[in-house]
């Protein structure tokens, strides 16, 4: 397909959030979704396991089936999807520079929706020591190899992390005849909630809590890892390392000097309650806003942002609202970063950066408008009702 030079709405990213926004807009205006991969559907394409689709299709689906269903629904609604197209720069206007087999081109739009998703934190970013042999992968890379390419990069890896995605890595391994030999978690307990945290025990995989992965060994391929935990330092023979979780936004397009500003806490774009970025011609939805949420959550958010885009095109969106700030160093981020009514977001979402217990409160202009006791860990969803009262809001955590 020859890329158009203009469209009403350009959506970057054909994952659940981008497809949902596009589907919501189709029929009302011209919508083009671009994706840099060879197939649409986003990360669920390579999550060959349950549970997907309850929210969207009212049935339990595996990731690839769910991804296909999202694509089919979008196309049936009239959405155009262009694949193997990489967005390389955003411009005020708005317009987006892209490269594809056709070379470099620019697409002008009335609105742009950013839905570029997340990636896991790499071994390099975690400063894990040792050598750099082959066989050290993120869960995303492993799932792509197993589910998309039918390949197996190792047979007896260790898994670093105990997030939901870490347990999903166990399922991926099982489907390819890979038997993890250990899970390693720096914290004292699992990050993911019961019952998924029971899963390794069912599979007979020992989980080492309060344990650090200190070094990776091997020249061409991993041969062992060194760990340091309550039982002291030891070595585990293994042929691979799955470095799982600690998601971060894929927000390369938010380059300094560009039209869309980054929120220093999430690493993704800073948005208002309508999902509008610092340049209001750009909206954002999905996991690039909040590392990380389920596909269903991103889909619902994409729909809501799609509706807000439409309202904006009709001139029905309200102006700027009040900022939300975090008043505790244990709170790592909040999305959206502004309050507001009648937009795409009717709740604030936040995360903590360490295990916490205490009282979470929202204050508007010094007055407490909401509070709740929480007991949470990093990577777990915390949801707060959108403050209605006018004025800047502050979120406070009083630890017990």
């Amino acid at each position: 397909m020859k890329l158009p030079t203009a469209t009403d709405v350009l959506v970057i990213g054909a994952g659940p959030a981008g497809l949902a926004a596009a589907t919501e807009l189709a029929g009302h205006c011209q919508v083009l979704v671009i994706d840099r991969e060879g197939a649409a559907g986003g990360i669920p394409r390579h999550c060959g396991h349950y549970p997907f689709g309850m929210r969207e299709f009212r049935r339990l689906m595996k990731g690839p089936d769910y991804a296909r269903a999202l694509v089919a629904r979008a196309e049936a609604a009239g959405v155009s999807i262009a694949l193997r197209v990489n967005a390389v720069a955003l411009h005020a206007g708005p317009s987006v520079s892209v490269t594809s087999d056709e070379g470099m081109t620019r697409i002008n739009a009335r609105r742009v929706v950013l839905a570029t998703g997340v990636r896991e934190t790499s071994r390099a970013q975690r400063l894990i020591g040792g050598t750099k042999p082959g066989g050290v992968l993120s869960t995303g890379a492993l799932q792509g190899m197993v589910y998309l390419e039918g390949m197996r990069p190792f047979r007896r890896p260790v898994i670093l992390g105990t997030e939901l995605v870490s347990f999903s890595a166990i399922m991926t391994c099982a489907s390819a005849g890979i038997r993890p030999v250990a899970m390693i978690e720096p914290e004292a307990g699992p990050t993911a909630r019961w019952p998924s945290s029971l899963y390794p025990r069912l599979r007979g995989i020992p989980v080492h809590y309060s344990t650090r992965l200190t070094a990776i060994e091997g020249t061409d391929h991993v041969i062992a890892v060194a760990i340091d935990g309550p039982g002291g330092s030891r070595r585990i023979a293994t042929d691979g390392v799955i470095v799982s979780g600690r998601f971060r936004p894929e927000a390369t397009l938010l380059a300094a000097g560009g039209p869309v500003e980054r929120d220093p806490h999430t690493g993704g774009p800073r948005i208002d309650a309508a999902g509008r970025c610092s340049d209001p011609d750009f909206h954002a939805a999905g996991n690039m806003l909040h590392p990380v949420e389920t596909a269903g959550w991103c889909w619902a958010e994409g729909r809501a942002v799609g509706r807000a885009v439409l309202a904006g095109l009709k001139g029905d969106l309200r102006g700027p609202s009040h900022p939300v700030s975090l008043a505790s160093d244990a709170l790592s981020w909040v999305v959206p970063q502004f309050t507001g009514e009648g937009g795409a977001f009717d709740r604030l979402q936040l995360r903590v950066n360490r295990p916490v217990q205490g009282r979470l409160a929202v204050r508007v202009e010094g007055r407490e408008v909401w509070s709740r006791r929480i007991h949470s860990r990093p990577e777990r969803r915390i949801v707060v009702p959108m403050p209605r009262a006018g004025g800047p809001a502050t979120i406070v955590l009083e630890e017990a």
Partner: protein
Amino acid sequence: MPAEALPGRFDVAIIGAGVVGCAIARRLALAGARVAVIEKALDILDGASKGNSAILHTGFDAPPDSLELACIRAGYEEYLSIHARLGLPLERCGALVIAWNEEQEAALPALMENAIRNGVIGIEPLDQAALRKAEPEVGAGARAAFRVAGESLIDPWSAPFAYLLQAVENGAMLLRGAEVTAASRDGDWRLETTRGEVRAGLVINAAGNFGDSVDEILLGRRDFTIRPRKGQFVVYDKPAAALVRHILLPVPTAVTKGVVVCRTAFGNLLVGPTAEDQEDRQQAALDPEQLKALIRRGEQIVPALKGQEVTAIYAGLRPATERKEYRIRAHAGQACITVGGIRSTGLSAALGIAAHVEQLAELAISPLEEPVWPSVGNISEFQPRDWQAAGHGGIVCHCELVTRREIMRALEGPLAARSLAGLKRRTRVTMGRCQGFYCSAELSRLTEGHFEQPMAEKVR
């Protein structure tokens, strides 16, 4: 890999396909010699040459009147004269040598004098205000500096790759995965390798971190002992590259050039290296504590680095010996030249070392009349990239914008990549911020059948 001894007799066998071996191969092939390059690793540039700071030095701080200085100066000049023809980049951004305390500030005039004595032009002192104007992001502790206008950034992998490619296109042969295990001489050298015998008139030992042990095999003795010096580096993501313009150098000590902050040819920002002596010649292990110290040092030099994302970490081994100087020697009557102890200046000096070795070799040959000049595909940010031109087949590595066409090209030809590490060095694939999260799966399919050690095995 099957044994496949290289056929016939070679004028010269070069042991080691690092930057020095590649440059010598090019020089001698252009001079008309029949050249064999023997590399024990599965791919070229797999030892000391895989992890350096990617700077083309002018030699401003080299010891005066040394062979090292002569080789750096000659290497620098030759790179300038050939890079465009080979398609290689050059970012002549200049360096600032920065003093962070009184003692260092007092040392600057002598360093500038040394630079001028070394024949380096474009030396200019900068007081604190001028320094701040030249590099607004530099830390508050910076007192004064001098500029070395000629210090440049280059692509550390494409340069040696181009040298060897030109050698091969002009008749040289490359034997990879071939470790020299024994050697004898009966008029000609007979080198036993793990992939068969190679016969040659002259042997050049460019074995880097194994230079001394290869000398033992060839000559039954060693003139020096390698004590590798490990250098760890932190690579920051692209946005950090906007923070500096020059190469920021510290005042060097007797042991090391110290921690450098500079942009890279691939659009990132580099901080490193450390200087740690070790016994192990093979493994350069990353050490989180040293990396954290390096990050802290980087944040002193450029405070705005705080909060910038790290893209990659790596460690290299420089082949240091018990002495600082190069250990280049033609062994009289033994048809053997040792090119050893090429520490951190190898990338800058390689072409000059090659010219020096050609003189030592005294080969009775005549230069090629019409040598082939291949051009390598540009992977640096200093020239147009493949993704900007039509017909690239789509992007495979999204972080580094590596195209399908680039990958398929790197898997073909006489210097086809034989390992993921080799493919990275030819294309930048998986080297970006996601470190393979997005592209490893497709890459494992695209590279199927090309690597000695596949990225993954086929299960269905």
